[in-house]
């Protein structure tokens, strides 16, 4: 580790010593003696290559390092013109702009080095195509001639044209290059505007670099087209080289910021250590460590319809698709998914950060997943209990309907037939037989009455026909104790109405049987989204919750649809049953 700086210094020294002799082979033809030119030119290329290598080593997941190395090498390519062969000289005249295209690629694809949207791919592909087209057009139409020209200093690609045609080609490529510079700068600014907090942190150095770089590219491109003073050109070039030399380090800092943030994972470990974190604080701690306030944690749990993801409250949740603008990182344990982090896509460029944060929070996440699983099961049990009650209600309604359509109708018809027989027989049968017939008719009427009572206990037809208010009135009317009904609520779900009916029916049955009351009241009021049902009497009181399977069953039924049930019954001071029922049966 300690040897590395020494090694680097030695390399730098060797490079400096070799610079002059090597320069004659690598660098720009015609400027070999001008150190004011050579040193800044070389510095730009070297800084790109060096920062690129550092980026490749430190952030292997990103392609930005490799792109920087490529740009640095492209910067040096015009050096091939030093080789005294016409083909190399001709190529050296065309490859200079390759650096600019790679620069555009770098800016647009930072910080991952990958092009994600169609727009980005279009901009970069367009820049490469423009470079190829412009170079080919220039190579075909340019025939340079100057005094003292050496034999190898001519364009081997020249095919046709005139100085005028070449001028037009040059103007068109220049305008195109300026447009591309503006578009690339706009794209970087758009990235910044659309980026989330973590994304902006990585983009910041690049955002600051894009304006001066674009300005330099535009001025440099216009150099041969626009007449300005030589001193201004010198200033522009000097500034431009400074910007270009610093630029790769801006990219590098952007890349390394990700690394620096891994320190936040250490804080995460401390924060989660020791005590079990409640769900909100686990999410908040992870969101802080990752710098993504929109972070969501979903847990994979076994459910009735197979395994699926739920949120921390146990509610089923689907993983967002790619079109939702969110990224998903699934966390595995022994090869099976246990949780998923739904986060900002910018974090995708920092897989190590995500990994280490997830590893640090693994225990807390596992713990939280088990809790989410319990919550999810509880929800499912509640839902299935409510469904069982609803199915039971449906069955009972059907049984009542069948009783009414079948046995009840037959008995009624039978009773009519017997009545007619009695009427027809008139006085011509023995008195004994007439008495027996009357008894049979009376017995049959009793049976019909019993059957009605039974059917009503199974399911009150009036509830389906007329709603809860009318059903409660009819219950009150049948109660031997005077009952006042006050109904002040809208209609509710069937499960809630049936439950309310049975609460009142059981309550009034108890009033009639045990309470020794002189009057009772039934009150139904709106209670948020649900209803509140109260049955009160002025009787003996002293009813225990545990006694009587009727009350126990009632409490279970109320709980099954998610309501609450309470009995207040101090001895000697009457009894109050209170049920609060959600209108929504879940």
């Amino acid at each position, binding site marked *: 580790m300690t040897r590395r700086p020494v090694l680097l210094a030695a390399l730098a020294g060797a490079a400096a010593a070799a610079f002059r002799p090597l320069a004659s082979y690598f660098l720009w033809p015609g400027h070999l003696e001008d150190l004011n030119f050579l040193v800044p030119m070389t510095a730009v290329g070297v800084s790109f290559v060096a920062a690129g290598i550092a980026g490749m080593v430190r952030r292997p997941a990103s392609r930005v390092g490799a792109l920087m190395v490529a740009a640095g090498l492209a910067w040096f390519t015009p050096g091939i013109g030093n080789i005294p062969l016409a083909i190399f000289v001709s190529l050296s005249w065309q490859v200079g702009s390759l650096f600019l295209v790679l620069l555009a690629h770098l800016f647009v694809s930072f910080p991952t080095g990958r092009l994600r949207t169609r727009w980005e791919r279009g901009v970069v592909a367009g820049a490469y195509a423009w470079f190829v087209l412009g170079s080919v057009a220039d190579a075909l139409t340019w025939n340079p001639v100057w005094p003292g020209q050496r034999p190898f200093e001519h364009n081997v690609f020249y095919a046709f044209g005139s100085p005028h045609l070449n001028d037009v080609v040059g103007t068109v490529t220049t305008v195109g290059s300026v447009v591309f510079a503006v578009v690339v700068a706009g794209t970087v600014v758009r990235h910044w505007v659309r980026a989330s907090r973590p994304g902006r942190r990585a983009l910041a150095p690049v955002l600051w670099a894009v304006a001066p770089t674009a300005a330099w590219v535009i001025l440099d491109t216009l150099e041969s087209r626009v007449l300005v003073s030589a001193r201004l050109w010198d200033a522009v070039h000097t500034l431009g080289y400074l910007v270009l030399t610093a630029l790769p380090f801006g990219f590098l800092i952007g890349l390394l910021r990700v690394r620096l943030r891994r320190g936040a994972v250490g804080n995460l470990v401390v924060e989660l250590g020791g005590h079990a974190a409640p769900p909100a604080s686990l999410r908040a701690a992870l969101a802080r460590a990752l710098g993504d306030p929109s972070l969501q944690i979903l847990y994979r749990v076994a459910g009735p319809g197979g395994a699926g993801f739920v949120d921390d409250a146990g509610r089923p949740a689907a993983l967002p698709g790619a079109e939702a603008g969110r990224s998903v990182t699934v966390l595995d344990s022994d090869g099976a998914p246990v949780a998923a982090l739904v986060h900002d896509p910018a974090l995708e460029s920092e897989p190590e950060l995500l990994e280490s944060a997830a590893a640090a929070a693994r225990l807390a996440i596992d713990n939280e997943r088990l809790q989410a699983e319990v919550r999810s099961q509880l929800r499912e049990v509640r839902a299935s209990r409510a469904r069982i009650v609803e199915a039971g209600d449906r069955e009972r309604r059907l049984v009542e309907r069948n009783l009414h359509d079948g046995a*009840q109708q037959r008995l009624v*018809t039978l009773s*009519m*037939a017997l009545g*007619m027989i009695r009427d027809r027989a008139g006085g011509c049968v023995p008195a004994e037989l007439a008495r027996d017939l009357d008894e049979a008719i009376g017995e049959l*009427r009793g049976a019909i009455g019993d059957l*009605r009572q039974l059917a009503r206990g199974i399911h009150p*037809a009036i509830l389906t*026909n007329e709603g809860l208010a009318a059903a409660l009135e009819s219950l009150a*009317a049948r109660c031997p104790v005077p009952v006042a009904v006050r109904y002040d609520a809208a209609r509710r779900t069937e499960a809630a109405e049936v439950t309310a009916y049975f609460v009142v029916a059981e309550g009034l049955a108890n009033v009639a049987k045990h309470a020794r009351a002189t009057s009772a009241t039934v009150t139904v009021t709106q209670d948020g989204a649900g209803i509140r049902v109260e049955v009160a009497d002025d009787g003996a009181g002293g009813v225990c919750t545990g006694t009587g399977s009727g009350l126990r069953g009632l409490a279970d039924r109320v709980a099954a649809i998610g309501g609450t049930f309470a009995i207040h019954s101090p001895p000697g001071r009457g009894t109050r049953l209170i049920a609060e029922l959600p209108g929504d049966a879940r």
Partner: protein
Amino acid sequence: MLIVDDHAGFRARARQMLGAAGYHVVAEAADGAGGIGAARRLRPGVVLLDVQLPDTTGFEVARMLLAGPSPPVVVLVSAREAADYGRLIERSGAAGFLSKSDLSARSLGALLGQAP
């Protein structure tokens, strides 16, 4: 008189019983649509109407019969009791309600307020 009920057994008994008491039963219908059709055609003075019909409810049929010109007197019948229907009976505009087990020439006559 017209009898509307989906139970053929009840229709037959009621026809026999009321016919014996001097009511002239002009037709029977097994459902609401048939009942309305027969009432329009035959213009009965009284319609004995079951509450629970296969295609609709007796309340609905009563409303439609009473909305027409020169409406008949409608008497609702059911195997259930009046208490099972609450205010629906009043609101239907029917002259009255008889539980089937209470149906006789006498109870019907009392309800219609006239001798057969």
